[in-house]
Structures are given as structure tokens and as C-alpha cells.
């Protein structure tokens, strides 16, 4: 190789490595957890340049003793808190059941949101019900919070005869316009510029609805993310851009996405977007931040960028084995705890909840999900014949089916006749 000079030290390529690998003892003592209200809640109309420190701190409401404190405290009443807890517990119960269904071979794939429930449930509760959500694939909590029928989610996961998406999408890639929930893409961060475009359209029409978009910290490396940030800033779009920093993008730790150098929240600063870093396992902080951002957007004060600092308690998906790349018990040692547990303890502290009520709700939700699962499975599971009619494969490519798809559809139907004779029609 040319270019080496003997009097200079050789250059070194830095490849980021996580602090712990399998077999290591996880130790998060270096993770800075500032006290509650270390950053006061600014006015919603604040200029991004005046609140830059929010991108480097951590917005918190629940302290280590489970009390809600400080200027970010959204002061939700007990019913709202119980509703938040229930939605988070429902999300967890749903995840557990569907994870098991995948392990039983009833579907191909599943993605849990364990440990991150606050980032979907609390955010959804802070938005208006018709604000448009552009989720990534781990925000099932939005649908559950907005009351989308659980059986419809399961039908989608099973790609069965009642799947609203006609068995085309990978499990968990829901679409629910009636809940203002955009169809999920498997390509990362593509929803980012789309959410900004939706918000621009809403603003140009003098609408009052805003949009919100979620992606993982790994996806912030995608070009779409940066295009969207530019557009959001340029047009002062009424959009809330959120990054769920759950520390892991499959097996790549957050440092591989650039997290070693600065906070993800700080990425918003260069675009001139108000940016917050929030304790993602503190449901009240998540709610408060989202509410602040939503109020800001709705009053034409522009976009907000939020990083939720959280932890992915489970694997990336059912196709992943986190034991192969990260230390065991990381989640147990996560310094910001478990969002469900924290909210439960807060409610108990308020005298508005009890361990008995919690256990009863846990059992009730497990039973609800189990019962719904039976209902969904009556419509079929993946690969067991109770699927959509074959010809639906050719529908919706275009509004009207062109000649070449009609020809191919006829060919496919002929193939099915040859394979299965007169019994070919799906049940």
C-alpha cells in the first residue's frame, strides 16, 4: 500500500463496540440519570435555539420513589393513569400471546414491544384521536390505545380469511385509517418524510390535525430520516418526529447508529428543530413531552424532535436471538426500570391502585387476549388453508386491473384448478 509515511503514526479505524457482550455482567452505573426537573418545562412557543439543552438532558416526571414531580408533571387524574396502565398492560399481554402463537407455528413472525410500551401508549394518549400516526413496527400500543379491535390485529398477524390486509403484509404491519394509523412499511424510516408531507398538507389546507412519526434509533442513519428533518424544518411542519432509542437495532448497539458521539435528540438541533430527550420508561414524562410537542405543533410553533431513551427488553423479533450478542439481564439492570412497573408503583403510592388490583387486571387482560385469540384462529392461521381468495393477490396493484394482471390472474386460477381440482376454492 502506498501513502504510509514512516514518521507518522498509522491511522486507526474506529469500530464502535457495546460495553457488554454475552457472559459479561451488565453495569449501567455510567448511564447518567439526572434528577426529576433538572430541565424545567419551557413554554411551547420557545424558539429551538433557546432550549438546546433539552436535547442533552433527560425529561423525567416519576422520581426514584415513584412520585410525580416537577414542571413536566402532566397532572393526570387517577382514571387517566389507570387507563394508561391498562393500555400498557394490554399491549404486554397481547405481545406475550402473539409471541407464543409464533412459537407454536401459527404465524411466521412477531415483534414485541416489551419495555417500550410507554413510547406508544402514552404518546397516543397525548395526541388527539384524529392526529395522524406514522408508526414504525413496534407501536402496536397506539392501536390498542385507540381502541382498534384486537381481533383485527390478530387476523392480520395470522394472514387469515378475515385479514383486512388480504394476507399481503408481514405480521404486525397493520393499517388502520379509522384510527388515523398509517400503513406500516418494512423499509426503515420511509414513513418519516411521509409524515412530514402529511403534516404539510394539513397545514396547507388550514386543517387542525397534526402528524406524528416514530422510528428506531438505528433508522436515524437512513437518508429518509435526514430528508424528513430538512423538510420539517423548512416548512415548519406541524409534525412530531420521534426516535425510540431502545439501544439495539437487531444486534447493532446504538453506537453503530452514531449514538456514541452525541444524543440522538441532538440531531434535531442542526436542523433548527426543538429537540427533547425523554426518559422513555417514564410514562408520565413521555406523555408530557408528547403533549408539549403536540401543543407546539397545533399552535404553528413547528416541529418537535423527541428521543425516548428506553431499552428493548426482548429480541428484535421472533427471528432474533439477543442472547447471541448482548449480556443477559441487561433489562433487569436498566437504570430507568420498567414502564409498567413504574406506573403501577406510582398509582399505588397515590392510593389509587393495589397489587391485588394489578394482578386481577393482569389476569383479566390475559384472559381477554386468549379469548380473542380463539376468535381470530377460527378465521384461520397462516398456511392452513383459511386464507383470502386467490384472486385477491391481483387486486389493489392498480385501481383498475390492467390486462396483464387479468391474464396472470387467469393463469393462477388455472394452476389452482390443476393442483386441487374442483375443491380448489378456499373455505
Amino acid at each position, binding site marked *: 500500500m502506498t501513502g504510509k509515511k514512516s514518521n507518522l503514526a498509522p491511522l486507526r479505524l474506529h469500530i464502535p463496540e457495546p460495553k457488554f457482550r454475552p457472559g459479561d455482567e451488565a453495569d449501567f452505573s455510567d448511564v447518567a440519570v439526572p434528577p426529576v426537573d433538572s430541565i424545567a418545562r419551557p413554554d411551547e412557543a420557545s424558539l429551538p435555539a433557546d432550549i438546546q439543552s433539552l436535547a442533552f438532558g433527560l425529561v423525567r416526571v416519576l422520581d426514584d420513589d415513584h412520585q410525580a414531580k416537577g414542571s413536566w408533571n402532566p397532572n393526570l387524574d387517577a382514571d387517566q393513569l389507570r387507563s394508561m396502565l391498562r393500555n400498557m398492560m394490554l399491549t404486554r399481554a397481547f405481545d406475550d400471546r402473539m409471541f407464543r402463537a409464533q412459537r407454536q407455528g401459527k404465524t411466521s413472525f412477531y415483534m414485541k414491544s416489551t419495555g417500550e410500551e410507554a413510547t406508544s401508549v402514552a404518546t397516543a394518549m397525548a395526541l388527539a384521536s384524529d392526529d395522524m400516526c406514522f408508526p414504525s413496527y413496534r407501536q402496536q400500543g397506539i392501536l390498542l390505545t385507540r381502541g382498534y379491535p384486537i381481533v383485527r390485529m390478530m387476523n392480520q398477524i395470522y394472514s387469515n380469511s378475515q385479514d383486512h390486509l388480504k394476507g399481503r403484509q408481514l405480521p404486525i404491519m397493520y393499517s*388502520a385509517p379509522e384510527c388515523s394509523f398509517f400503513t406500516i412499511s418494512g423499509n426503515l424510516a420511509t414513513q418519516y418524510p411521509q409524515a412530514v408531507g402529511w403534516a404539510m398538507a394539513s397545514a*396547507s389546507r388550514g386543517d387542525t390535525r397534526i402528524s406524528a412519526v416514530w422510528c428506531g434509533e438505528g433508522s436515524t442513519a437512513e437518508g429518509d430520516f435526514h430528508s*424528513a428533518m430538512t*423538510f420539517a424544518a423548512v416548512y415548519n411542519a406541524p409534525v412530531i418526529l420521534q426516535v425510540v432509542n431502545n439501544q439495539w437495532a437487531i444486534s447493532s448497539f446504538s453506537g453503530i447508529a452514531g449514538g456514541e458521539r452525541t444524543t440522538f435528540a441532538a440531531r434535531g438541533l442542526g436542523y433548527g428543530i426543538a429537540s427533547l430527550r425523554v426518559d422513555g420508561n417514564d410514562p408520565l414524562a413521555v406523555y408530557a413531552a408528547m403533549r408539549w410537542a403536540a401543543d407546539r405543533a397545533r399552535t404553528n410553533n413547528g416541529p418537535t424532535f423527541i428521543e425516548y431513551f428506553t431499552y428493548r427488553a426482548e429480541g428484535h423479533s421472533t427471528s432474533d436471538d439477543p442472547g447471541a450478542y448482548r449480556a443477559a439481564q441487561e433489562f433487569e439492570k436498566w437504570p430507568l426500570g420498567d414502564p409498567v412497573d413504574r406506573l403501577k408503583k406510582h398509582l399505588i403510592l397515590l392510593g389509587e391502585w393495589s397489587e391485588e388490583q394489578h394482578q386481577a387486571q393482569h389476569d383479566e387482560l390475559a384472559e381477554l387476549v386468549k379469548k380473542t385469540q380463539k376468535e381470530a384462529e377460527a378465521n384461520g392461521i397462516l398456511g392452513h388453508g383459511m386464507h383470502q381468495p386467490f384472486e385477491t393477490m391481483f387486486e389493489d396493484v*392498480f385501481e383498475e386491473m390492467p*390486462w396483464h394482471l387479468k391474464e396472470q390472474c387467469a393463469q393462477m386460477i388455472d394452476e389452482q384448478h390443476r393442483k386441487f381440482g374442483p375443491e380448489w376454492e378456499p373455505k
Partner: protein
Amino acid sequence: MMGDTKTMNMIEAINSALDIMLERDPDVVLMGEDIGYFGGVFRATAGLQAKHGKTRVFDTPISECGIIGAGVGMAAYGLRPVPEIQFADYIYPGLDQLVSEAARLRYRSAGDFICPMTVRSPFGGGIFGGQTHSQSPESLFTHVCGIKTIVPSNPYDAKGLLIAAIEDNDPVIFFEPKRIYNGPFSGYYDRPVEPWSKHEASAVPEGYYRIELGKAGVVREGEALTILTYGTMVHVVQMVVAEMGIDADILDLRTLLPLDVEAIERSVKNTGRCLVVHEATRTSGFGAELAALVQERCFYHLEAPVERVTGFDTPYPHSLEWAYFPGPVRIASAIEKIMKD
């Protein structure tokens, strides 16, 4: 509805189509680099921001991914965005938003969300644009499920097709052959270029009209051979056919997807010979699809193998673009070869 005709070149016809659609449909929004105040580098949107306002016609950052991605979101909201990509060569940074998102929105959501977006983009060579301002990437899009691909060849078609594209509820790629933006040209492009601004324009109705998507245009009826072509090459082919005095049946495909297979089949079965002419590179180009289709459907009617005349499999060379361009000599040679059999 169509009103009086006016002499327009293709740019003026496109401008007229956009103006009419902005007027008729409040959901139509134009966006792109330099298209607002300035009216676009080719002036296709000149005067439209002043007339229809900044929220209907506006400039964007230099980010094709952002332009198209935001367009998808606007379409999902209920608007009919018409983004301009300044040159087709720059469409690649926005390709994922087109291929994976716009094209599949209807399918993946089973109709919950649709993407009635028309992406306009000047394409093709012939203006000394070098390798980054001359490409013809249409076959990328005909290979994608869920996008319609359109290439007009004259001002009248450009206006009628663009109006139909904007009104269509599916995403459309509308490639505008920039060599003929300022009027049909003589076709002599395998020699150094003559100033394009001297080319004449043609009569175009001033009002609203549509040309149905998926229907080929008949440029010339004949018995000797079928020539399937589109865009700039329509003019080159016409000139060659006139010079050779050959009785060719020339189809201007206009919409590459969905394709007018009936017109193709009818013509080739009648003539028994088929030549495909396009400007894009040869290998895996749209001509390959056309040749395969003709072979599948018309094999027993063919008197000679289907021939392809295309650009070469190299990037577009700046100083030698007129040698790269599939000009009259290349086309005439192919016609001679087909007619020998």
C-alpha cells in the same frame, strides 16, 4: 371544453395542463426544486406560483427522497401532488419512496391509503447534458408493480396525458423528453446538434382534454413493418421512414405501463415485421419486453426476427452524445435488415 387551439411547444403544453389542473382541482399541488418563483429550470411551471399561490406551487430542498416521500404523505392526506424531479437522472435518491412506498401503498394497505401522485421528470438526451442529465430510466419503473409509466412525444399528447395522469388515482411517472420540449425536431441527431429553440411548435387546445392512459397513438398507418417507439424517437423514426419511403406502421406507445398490447398485436399481425426503437440503453431495456411480447403473441405472423434499436450500454457521453443517440443511420440499418428477410 377543449376551446380554441394555440401554438404551443411541449413545455407550454405541460404548463397549460398544470395550470388547468391547479384551477380545476384544489387538491392539486406542485412541488420541486426551483419550480416556484423561478418556474423550473425548463420553465414548465413558469407563472403558476404567481397565479395559484405559494401553498399550491412551491420550491423544495434538494432532496428527491424528501420530495417524493413528502408527496406520498400528501397523497395519503388526500391531495394530488405533482412533484417535479429536475432531471430523471436524479430520481435514484427518491427511488425507494417510489418503488417501495408510492407504488405499493394501495396494495399493502388493501386500499386504505392510495397515492394519486404524478412525478414529472425531464428525461432522455440530446441537449449535451452529459451522463447525469440524459438518462432514460423508464424500464426501472415498468418493472415496478403499481406505477404507471408515461412518455409523451408531442405537445398535444403531453397535455392530454398529463391531465389524465394527474386525475388518475394511481402513482404515475411522467417522463418528458427534453430534446423535444421546445417543439418536434427534425430527427437529425446523429450529427452535431442544431439549436433546439429553432424547432417549431404545434397546435394544442387551450382548454381541458384528456388522452386515455394505456392507449398507443397511431403516428402513421402502413403495411410493410411495425415500428414500436415513444418519446423523442417517434420523430426520428418518422423522418427515417419518410426518407426511406417505406410503408411503415408506426405506433407511439405513449403509456409504457399499462401497455396497449392490443394495438401492438393488431399491427404486428398485419405487417409481419417489428422494429422496436428507444433511446435507453439496450440490455434489459423496455425494448426487450416489447420484443418478448411480440414473440409470444405474434410469432406465427412474423416474417423476420424482431429487431431493437437502442442507445448503447454505456453512460451517456457528453461530447459524443450524437454518436450514442439512436439516430437515423442506426434505425435505417435495422429497417433494411428486417426487410431483407
